[in-house]
């Protein structure tokens, strides 16, 4: 809970002022019944109307002041809760940005989202209403108890007689409700898993005409859920009436027992009135006590889960004394690089003893089958993952020595899976830069052959691309991501099979346009198409994480190995396309 304290400390002034307001509210709330008693005493003893009106005015004034102070206390404390929520959410976001991709591979977006949404709100509930009631409940109880005792000890004891029973019942019930609501949650998740599975396997359900069976299964689960929910409803349903009933019962005791004593002559009606008023004041804090406890419980559990995220180490980060990147002078070199992906190899093949150099102004091509490790090689350069052994050098220095930010801004990495943000195309293209001129944008669009598409788009470059770019075709998305990297104008370009969804004709045109730029840039081109790497200064053929062939296009074709085989295959499928 260390982190929680830090947040609380940050707003201690607000909590303090809020707390003082709470104290002031409680004081006024507690004195009003006392003054009522004084006023009623005057009535009972046949005093002057003027004296009664004095107390009436006092109570009225106290009520108004109390209203204002109470509003302040609530606004201050609830707002402080919101402020912590704001800080916590920002801190989480900042931290999430630092975490490496391997973290995101081990988490599902949905899980992460629900943590951030539900857990943050649980923490906020604890720090807002939770704190307020945590202060209020004991404050009111002690305050009222002292005042009631000072009025009449026996009456107090009689009136509060049902309280231990109430507290016992609430404590007992709370456990059962907690258990029951957990069961409801479990049943709910069983229900939604069934729906989830049914929908994901809909083709099997339909092909084997299992709709009826699936519905019957759903009905059975639904009925279980209903039964559990009703059980919970029954218990929840008891709490409010019982609380109200208890409160009314204490009033009855005061009325009855007090009445007897008034008749006997050792108590005044004024005392009864005051007692009834105190019991009214106490009704809410007692009812809220159990609620407050569960708020704190939930909030702590939520904070613990959030801390798990906040404690996740950003394994890939700039070193403390990071070197600045000053352009690229010599080039990039892979020296005996090996890579083993985390616990499992989630589609990330192991790399072994990769050696090659990419001098400045040159280009290296990487080919290989799916799963040969060619994308992994590309991902190691911008440090999406760190090498397991060996090193990647940039201008003779290990890339881990550079500032991560500057390293990445030197590299224009175009990933295979095109991701666009759901904003305008223009903002997507300019993503890497703070400002970009229309000319620069137009140039990148031209090279990526996106210009023809822009003419068709209703709002041209201002078209909104939709969530993950759904409104664009696969090829359009890939070309847009290429343009996005070109806009950044980095000295190094890493193209990770980024034209796989673009048809061969357009790809050829793009490559044609790129060649002019590639001459000024250092380039690593990964592709499953030979045509993309044909003109590279050196071509590496990867298989099962190892380089099995290397050389220029001509050399490799003449050698008649895997590369030549691939080349032949591709010519065949091109031919097939043409038919």
């Amino acid at each position, binding site marked *: 809970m260390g982190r929680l304290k830090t947040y609380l400390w940050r707003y201690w002034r607000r909590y303090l002022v809020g707390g003082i307001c709470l104290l002031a509210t409680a004081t006024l709330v507690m004195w009003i019944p006392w003054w009522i008693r004084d006023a009623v005493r005057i009535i009972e003893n046949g005093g002057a109307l003027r004296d009664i009106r004095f107390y009436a005015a006092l109570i009225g004034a106290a009520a108004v002041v109390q209203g204002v102070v109470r509003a302040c206390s609530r606004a201050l404390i609830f707002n402080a809760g919101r402020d912590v929520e704001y800080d916590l959410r920002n801190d989480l976001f900042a931290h999430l940005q630092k975490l490496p*991709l391997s973290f995101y591979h081990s988490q599902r977006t949905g899980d992460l989202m629900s943590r951030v949404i539900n857990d943050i709100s649980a923490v906020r509930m604890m720090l807002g209403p939770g704190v307020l009631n945590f202060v209020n409940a004991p404050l009111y109880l002690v305050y009222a108890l002292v005042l009631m005792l000072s009025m009449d000890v026996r009456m107090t004891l009689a009136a509060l007689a049902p309280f231990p029973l109430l507290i016992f019942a609430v404590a007992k019930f709370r456990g059962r409700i907690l258990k029951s609501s957990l069961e409801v949650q479990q049943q709910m998740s069983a229900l939604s898993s069934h729906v989830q599975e049914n929908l994901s396997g809909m083709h099997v359900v339909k092909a084997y005409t299992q709709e009826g069976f699936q519905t019957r299964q759903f009905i059975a689960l639904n009925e279980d859920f209903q039964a559990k*929910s009703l059980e919970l409803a029954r218990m929840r349903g008891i709490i409010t009436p019982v609380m109200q009933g208890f409160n009314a019962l204490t009033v009855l005791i005061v009325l009855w027992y007090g009445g007897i004593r008034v008749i006997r002559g050792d108590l005044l*009606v004024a005392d009864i009135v005051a007692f009834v008023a105190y019991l009214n004041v106490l009704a809410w804090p007692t009812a809220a006590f159990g609620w407050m406890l569960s708020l704190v419980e939930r909030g702590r559990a939520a904070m613990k889960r959030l801390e798990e995220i906040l404690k996740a180490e950003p394994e890939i980060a700039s070193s403390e004394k990071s070197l600045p990147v000053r352009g690229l002078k010599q080039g990039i070199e892979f020296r005996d690089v090996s890579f083993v992906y985390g616990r499992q190899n989630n589609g990330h093949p192991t790399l072994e003893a990769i050696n090659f150099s990419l001098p400045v102004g040159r280009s290296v091509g990487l080919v290989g089958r799916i799963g040969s490790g060619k994308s992994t090689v590309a991902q190691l350069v911008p440090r999406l993952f760190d090498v397991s052994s060996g090193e990647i050098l940039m201008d003779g220095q290990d890339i881990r020595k550079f500032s991560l930010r500057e390293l990445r801004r030197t590299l224009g990495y175009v990933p295979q899976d095109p*991701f666009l943000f759901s904003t305008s195309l223009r903002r997507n293209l300019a993503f890497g830069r703070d400002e970009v001129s229309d000319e620069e944008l137009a140039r990148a669009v031209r090279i990526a052959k996106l210009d023809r598409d822009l003419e068709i788009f209703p709002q041209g470059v201002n078209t909104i691309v939709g969530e993950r770019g759904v409104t664009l075709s696969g090829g359009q998305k890939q070309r847009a991501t290429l343009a996005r990297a070109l806009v950044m104008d980095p000295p190094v370009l890493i193209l990770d099979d980024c034209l796989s969804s673009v048809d061969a004709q357009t790809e050829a045109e793009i490559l044609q346009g790129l060649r002019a730029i590639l001459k000024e840039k250092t380039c690593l081109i990964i592709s499953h198409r030979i045509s993309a790497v044909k003109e590279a200064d050196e071509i590496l053929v990867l298989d099962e994480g190892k380089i099995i062939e290397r050389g220029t296009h001509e050399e490799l074709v003449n050698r008649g190995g895997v590369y030549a085989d691939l080349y032949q295959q591709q010519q065949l499928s091109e031919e097939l396309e043409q038919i």
Partner: protein
Amino acid sequence: MAELSQQEEILGKAYDIRLIQRLWKFIVPYKRLFWMAMLLLPLQQAFGLAQPYLMKIGIDQYIAGRDLKGLQGVGLLFLAAVVGETVTLFFHYYFSMLVAQRCLADLRVAVFSHVQKLPMSYFDRNPVGRLVTRMTTDVDVLQEMFSSGVMTLISDFVMVFWIIGIMFYLHVELALVSLALIPPMAVAINFFRVKARQTYRQIRERIARINAYLAEAISGMGVIQLFAREEKSYREFDKLNSDHREAYHLSNLYEASLYSMVEAAGSVSVALLLWYGGGEVLHGVIGIGTLVAFKEYINRFFVPLRDFSQKYAVMQSAMSSAERIFQLLDTPVTIESPKNALIPKPFRGEVVFDNVWFHYKPDDPVLKGVSFRIEPGEKVAVVGATGAGKTTTIKLLNRFYDIQKGYIKVSGVDVREWDLQALRQHIGVVLQDVFLFSGDVRANLALGDRSISMDRIEKAAQFANADRFIQWLPGTFDAQVRERGSNFSAGQRQLLSLARVLVFQPEILVMDEATSSVDTETELLIQDALDKVMKDRTCLVIAHRLSTIRNADRIIVLHHGVVREMGSHAELMEKRGIYYRLYQLQYEREELKLATYDAAAKIHD
């Protein structure tokens, strides 16, 4: 999660007669319970409103009159009122929850069974997550409407008039004094209520934006990091976050004011009562008890007014949830059995595609006039490059989609005239990505058909070579299958799917062979099982295995949505056309691999 954002969170009216009517249809079966719950409300209110009155009588008549017996009587009455209120309140709540749970369970089933009927094209367009939300979260919101006491809105309104009536009965002048407090309070409450509602709407919009941004940032984290744009996106996020906080600060202020005002009003009314009523009491016109009762009544007067804003918000979200649920229920079922559906008997099992045109998206035809005929018992392999339309072809046969032109006939009857259920029962489907349900192995083979005997299941598993690994599983046929069958290997899943076909014994088998590589031993088991499964069946197979095309009676070559070549392997190879090239491209390699395996096997022998 991001989809949860814009479209779904926009709040509309809190009361929509059309939606209420539709919801009411679900309540109708439980309307007796519903009315019982409703009738308990005035009873509960009567018990509640009796208490201050009894207090007044107790104080004014019996305590002041020193009548112990009378006090006892009133005390007992008071106790009865307390018990009465407690009991009626409980049963009101319980009955409403009973109605809510029952009718919402019905609603859930209605949605679920409707979704089962929707065509595959619907599932292509709508993400699973969104549909799950309809059946869970949205229905939950409706439940909240019941449990938060929205049903009491009308009765709260009625109670206000009861209270006014009682106050006038007790003392006209004091009633007027108390009511004098009501207009300014009502105005003030209304002011804060409207304000709170506006900020509430703002808050919903802003939190939706935060969550959408967050979801997108999480999915696009790679891009953010690669472009080193962490600071920029942090600034954007901070902006959204602080907008949200700001809206809440305002809303907190309104809510705090509203709450405090109602609390203060109670005390102010006491002051007013003492001020104006004090003299009356002094002159003995009314008793102290009347003052006490008035104070209680005024309290009970303001609380429903205060809670109204919360209930209003709940109604708003409930209406938009209902809207979304009914929208789903209104989605038309486009593929279903026709009115006079046919079940041709006897089932012969030939398949005819005649000039079939099909597109998923207009202007982008996938099949362009495909025609072929498969005789009963014939094995036909479909080959073609990616995107040629192979998978689409097999999905059309059992009417996952309806074609736009031409016709598809099974056993001489157009698939659109068939009884859908019967048609699909005649066609067994094995898809590339074998889908297993969580549950046990047995349930995955028999798919819930209880009439299938264990014997038949075991035989099928044995025949499909699946029993070899099943017998090693803990609990064999009762072994648990995890979600999507993640605890089985790709090869094991394929064997299970073949066993599934054998359990159901369909006359026609449609298959999209898996491309994922499996070890040699499993490969041999699969091939053996395939041979057995395909024997004596009409088969339409998208072939990826060399053995499959070799064993096929006929091969159909699809190219860009058109049947370009047809014939046996030898005939097509001779033609040196598309098939010849495809063969070189896709299957020759496998031939080489098999040759090496054979060679290796020989050495081992």
